[in-house]
Each structure stands twice: as C-alpha cells, then as structure tokens.
C-alpha cells in the first residue's frame, strides 16, 4: 500500500512541535484505506500537520496554493452531507479542484458499473479519489484499479480512517499522551466502521479501550465480560457487561449512533429500550472521570444513544470534532497528493534544512 520514493535532500532528525517522532512520514503513501499499517509515529505526524492545517482553516482568508492544479473527486455511494462537505472544504482550502460525484450503489449493476466508473475517472487523470461505499473492502478494490490516491471515507462496516484520525486529534488536543487512558465506546460495534477503526486507532496510541453494547451487536465469538486476545486483531479490547462498567472512570466516552435498521433486523426490541439501558446521559457521564470528554461522530440521535443534555453540555466536544475533521482531512489530502507527485523528484538542487 505504500509508495516509497527516494528520500529527497537531507532528512535531518525530523522535528515536530512535540519533539522527534519515531519514524515520521518518511515514505509518502499512495492511499489511506485504513489505519492498520500506520505506526503511532506516522499518526502523530499527521496530527501535527493537522494542527498547522487547523490554524489555516481558522483564518479569514483560508486559501493556499498547496494542491493547486490537482483534481480531487469525492465519490459517495452512500448519503453523507457532512463528511463529503468536510472533504470538499479540505481540498478547496488547499487549492485543489474538487468535483463531487454521487452514485447510488443500488442503481449500479453488479460490479460492472463500479469498475467502469473507476476506469473512466482513471482515464481523466485525477489525483485523488475520496470514496464512501456501502460494501466493506470497496476502497481496496478501487485502489487496485486506479493510479489516483484513494482515501477511504468509509467502506461498509469495515473502516473509516479519517474519522478515527479526527477523533484522535480531538482527544490529543485535550489530553495529550493517551497512554493508559480509558476510552469507552458505547454503541453498535457489529455494524459500525467507526467503532472498528476507533478501537484500533486508540489502542495503537496506547489507550485502553472498552466497549459496551447489547450482545446482539457484537460478533458471536466475542463474549461480554471478557478481554479479547491478540488473535482477534483487537487484542486488549475489554467488553463491558453493562454500560456503567464501561463508563466508570473513563477519560473519554464515545457514543455511536444506533439506527432504526437494527431494531428492524431484530437486534433490539426498541430504540427506547436501547436508550434506557445504554444511552449516555448525565447520570452515566457522572461515573466517568472529572473532565472526561464526550464524543460522537455524528449525526446524533438525541434521546436515543445520547441525551440532549450531555450532547450540548460542557463536556461535549462534538462541534470540535467537526472542525477538526476539516483540518485532519487537509493533512491527509496534503500528505497523499503533494509530496512525491511533482516532476522534481530527485532534484539534487533541493536540499532541506539550509535552503531558503
């Protein structure tokens, strides 16, 4: 998945605002399909860049020429205004041309159209493709059939890497080093790509992650009241017996959206019962640590998985998450599209560190 280029110029010890990072963004990647093979160091570097991007996104004149002349296409097979607008804004602040394509997965006949759509775009020489698709693995499939950089904006129930990055960014900004911190994720795990990506992401940064939800919404082979072993790919994940156990002494409480479809498929008797037994409200938040953050990837079903009171309360960082989303996506697009793509690779005239 990575596309190493020759290291251009000198790379002296790579400094970040937080000190020297362990590996750094040494080999420019071609795609961001999941966070599986990013090291904690690479993630920290992306988050460091996001800080710089956040500052730019906050200016009055927020335009930069960084990705001028690049074409980014957002191709969403699932409805999502907020994520698409977030990517669009990210690309435009960086000066790229952003084109939005919406398609309906159901109107796409089996395989042929997805493949042909990708090949058509490939012929138009685009630089990046931001894709959201209802099938797990779709972004890998697409990356195998295009030269453009592919950013996974959510594939089925598998992964949503930029959501995890912005969640990590938000937590880092408040808490700093996440080692040993307790993260509680409450909600549908079985169908949630945000849950999967966040469990992996926060574990990678050294946090301890606990999950709580109805037994019908975790895989059959996971048992409530246990801790998962490494062979599951989510080693160390704690499965709480109930939500109070999960939230107790947590530093971050993350509520995930519960959808009506789950009740329709027989996983839940009703959303009301879910809200009663797993909903994050003021009493449950009080069990968490003082100053614990309340997060939600949005959009929120107030009154179901989260009460209005806490959703808009002092501990809620939901709006920050949205703002951070643009900054993080700017960092991702910039990292994928800018370095290593110019024709000046290997120009020995360029040296870093002393040139001005």
């Amino acid at each position, binding site marked *: 998945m990575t596309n190493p280029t020759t290291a251009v110029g000198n790379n002296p010890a790579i400094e970040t605002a937080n000190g020297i990072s362990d590996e750094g963004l040494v080999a420019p990647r071609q795609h961001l399909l999941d966070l599986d093979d990013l090291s904690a160091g690479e993630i920290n570097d992306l988050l460091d860049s996001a800080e710089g991007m956040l500052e730019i996104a906050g200016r009055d004149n927020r335009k930069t020429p960084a990705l001028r002349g690049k074409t980014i296409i957002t191709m969403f097979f699932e409805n999502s205004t907020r994520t698409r607008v977030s990517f669009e804004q990210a690309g435009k602040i960086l000066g790229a041309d952003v084109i939005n394509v919406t398609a309906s997965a159901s109107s796409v006949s*089996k395989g042929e159209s997805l493949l042909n759509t990708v090949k058509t775009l490939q012929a138009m020489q685009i630089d990046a493709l931001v894709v959201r698709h209802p099938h797990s693995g779709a972004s890998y499939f697409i990356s195998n059939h295009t030269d453009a950089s592919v950013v996974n904006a959510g594939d089925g*129930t598998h992964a949503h890497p930029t959501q995890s990055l912005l969640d990590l960014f938000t937590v880092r900004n408040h808490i700093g080093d996440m080692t040993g911190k307790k993260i509680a994720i409450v909600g549908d795990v079985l169908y949630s790509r945000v849950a999967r990506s966040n469990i992996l992401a926060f574990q990678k940064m050294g946090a301890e992650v606990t999950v709580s939800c109805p037994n019908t919404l975790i895989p059959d082979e996971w048992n409530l009241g246990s801790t998962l072993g490494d062979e599951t790919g*989510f080693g160390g994940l704690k499965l709480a017996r109930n939500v109070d156990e999960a939230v107790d002494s947590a530093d971050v409480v993350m509520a995930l959206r519960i959808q009506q479809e789950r009740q329709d498929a027989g996983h839940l008797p009703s959303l009301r019962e879910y809200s009663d037994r797993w909903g994050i409200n003021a009493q449950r938040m009080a069990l968490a640590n003082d100053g614990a953050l309340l997060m939600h990837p949005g959009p929120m079903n107030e009154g179901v998985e989260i009460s209005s009171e806490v959703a808009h309360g002092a501990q809620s960082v939901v709006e920050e998450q949205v703002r951070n989303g643009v900054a993080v996506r700017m960092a991702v697009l910039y990292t994928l599209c800018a370095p290593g793509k110019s024709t000046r690779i290997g120009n020995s005239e360029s040296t870093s560190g002393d040139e001005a």
Partner: protein
Amino acid sequence: MAARKLAITGGRVIDPAQGIDRVADVLISNGKIDEVTASSEWTMLDDYEVIDASGKIVSPGFVDLHTHLRDPGQEWKETIITGTRAAACGGFTTISAMPNTDPVQDSAAVVDDVVRRSAADGLVRVLPIGAISIGQKGKQLAPMGELADSGVIGFSDDGNPVADANLMRQALSYSVELGLPIINHAEDKKIGAGGVMSAGTVATRLGLAGVPAEAETAMVARDLHLADLTKARLHIPHISTVGSLVALRTAKDSGVDVTAEVTPHHLTLSDEWVYGLKGEVPAAVGSEAYDTNTKVNPPLRSRADVEAVIDALSEGLIDIIATDHAPHAATDKVCTYNEAAHGINVLETAFSSVFQLVDTGKISVVRLIESLTAGPAAILRKDLGSLKKGFSADVAIIDPGSKWIVNPEQLESKSVNSPLAGVELTGRVVTTIYQGETVFDLNASGVFSEAKQ
C-alpha cells in the same frame, strides 16, 4: 467408441472397488475394460497401442456428482463443451449436471435436451440431476417421476435450500419409490442473515457480514431427521462444518440412508484465504484482501472445520469428494466482495489440490481415489468408477511427482475464478481416457496440450 486396443502398462493401478493396489497393466478394447493383469500374464500383440504408465498411478476415471455447467442459459460462463473439456483435464470422465440452469431442469423437455446435447458434444459423460421443486422456487414439487424417466440420478435445488420443511419432507417421501436421492443444499438463510463469508475472526476484522456454521448445521439436522422419518435416500452436498458431521455420524449410526460429499476447497482452504495471502494471516489488512475468488457457498470455514472434514473423509464418515464446480464470468467476480457471485472453478484443480493432503499424510491415496471413483459410483448405483471387466474404459493416469503452478488463464474452463492462482501443486492428472479414447493428454500438442506450466 473406439475399436482400438489400448494397453496401459507398468503403472500403479489403484481400483478401490476391486481392492486393487499394485503395479499392473490395464487392457482395453472396444471402449471397454478387458482386464487388469500383471505384465507377465499376457502377450503384447502388434495391434495394441501402448501407454507407458511407469511411475504413474492408474485410476478409474473420476466421477463427479456435483457440477454446474451453466448450460442452458449462462453459456458465457461455461457450456457443456467447455465444461466437459475442463472435466477431462481434471481426470473426470463422468460429471453430473446440476439443474440450476436457465431454464431450470425441472421438466423432461429441458433434461432431455441436456442429455441429448451432452451425448453429442460432450467430451465426457454427463449425467443429469433434476430439480426438487418447480423453478427451484421451493413451493411445489417438480415432476420427479418424469424426470426419473429422463435419467436423472437424483434431485436438487442446489443454490437454493428447500426452506419449507414440509416440502422437504414430501420430496423425500415421494422419492422413495424412485430410489433416487434428494440432494438438498442445506443452508438456513435466516440464520445466515445475509452473510458473505464464514462468521469468525476474519469476518470481524474485514467488516464482512458473517454466516455462522449453524446456518448449515441446523438444516442438515433437519434433513437427517426427515430422512429418518421418510426412510428416503438423502445425499448431503458440500458438507463443511463440525456440527454437520456430528449430526451425520449419529444419523448413520442409527441407520439413516444418508451419504455425504465434501468439496476440494472445503478440504484445503480456510476462511483465512479471504485475506488474499493464500491462507496467511497478515498483521495489517492489505489491498489483496477481499479476494472474491474465495467467495463460495457454503463459505470457506474455520481451520477447525477444515481439519474435521479431512478426518471425516479419511475415515469414511464423508463418503465422497464432489467438486461443486461453479464457473463465473469476470463481471461477477471483479467487484466488491458483497457484489461477487458465489462459486469457485474446481474441475481442473480438484485432484491436485486434495493430493497435497496425501503428501502430508492426512489421507491415503487409496482412500482419496476411492472418494472420487468407487464412492460416487456406489451412490449412483451404476457400473462406473472401476476397472472391472466390461466397464466403460474410463481411466485417469496421474503423475504423482509432477509440479505445476495454477494459472487460471490456461485452464480449459471458460472461467478463471480460482483462488489457487499462482499456487504450486504437486501431483497431476496427465492423461484421461473416456470410453477407450484419449480425451486429455498433457504432453500432446493440440487442444489440450498445456503450453507450459
């Protein structure tokens, strides 16, 4: 039928139906087996064509009870012609055409057409299987008597389970008089709930909806009880789970008339193959994952299930191997995992892939050949799968040391959907003889010669 006289000499002849496992010569004339005899016991005459099989294994031609020929209706995936060619390359001299064609083989008219065209154009023998229900819709019984008259060897709605327990009971009961087995694709789709691969760690990591083993086990149990109730013949296709085997053993012990088959892929591949790394488990999921050539029904199972079916086949709890050869076009496989059609291309890799189990000592070569020859013939109750005198001269000659790398583009089948692309296998069918005629010869030039492996 060839008048030619053929002597296959010096090979290790393994004919489990006759209990033969020794170096011997096989003599053929007029398309029939004359005898299996030691070379000292007969005199070579000039009119004998000789195939030197020293160092090779000489087996009866393989008999497959489960093949999807896609003809009529989906000829872009496979036809009777290409399917029988693929069969010949894999050592199969008899295959059984599943009825899930378009139109479905639920009437004499359609079955007769398949029989006629197979006889005319097929390179090897094709036996028809009739549908259990009209259109395979699981609502109303197909005219099983009429289909039996047309020569079907059993009934199946394969692809679809007979979900209605009453219909399954009636089908079993009705079939008793005909003496033909009901072959039900055991899958409770409600338990399966839209899963696309086996439930478990792999599915969870990949975010793919998983099918629990119980989706098969529950219906196998149901079918066994109904077979017991009706005293009918039940044949379980593509059995794949530990739970199904437990139920099968209990049923056989109590005298239920049941047989079971397992596919080459369920004997050799686990759900870890969906990672796209030939069974390796990666630390990080990569872009080779979601290999649609691993998508099949029943899905590739856990390693524990794989070990269990291997042992069950070896001991005879599972009676035979059947390929479930399911060719698909590229448009059905070059897509997302959810969108991909279920099915693996098997005929030409079947023997070689399971032969690896002989190498590792998990199954004896005799038992392996039995499960491809005498076993299926016994279920068919036909004079096939053996080198007995007077039987059709159907022979497969195997080179046990031949190494080859699977290249789907070079297979005779129209389709290329094999997860074994690039895998090196040891052991290969090198010559196939059907009714005394050579229908496949690896080393000859012409249609079936392999340019290179």
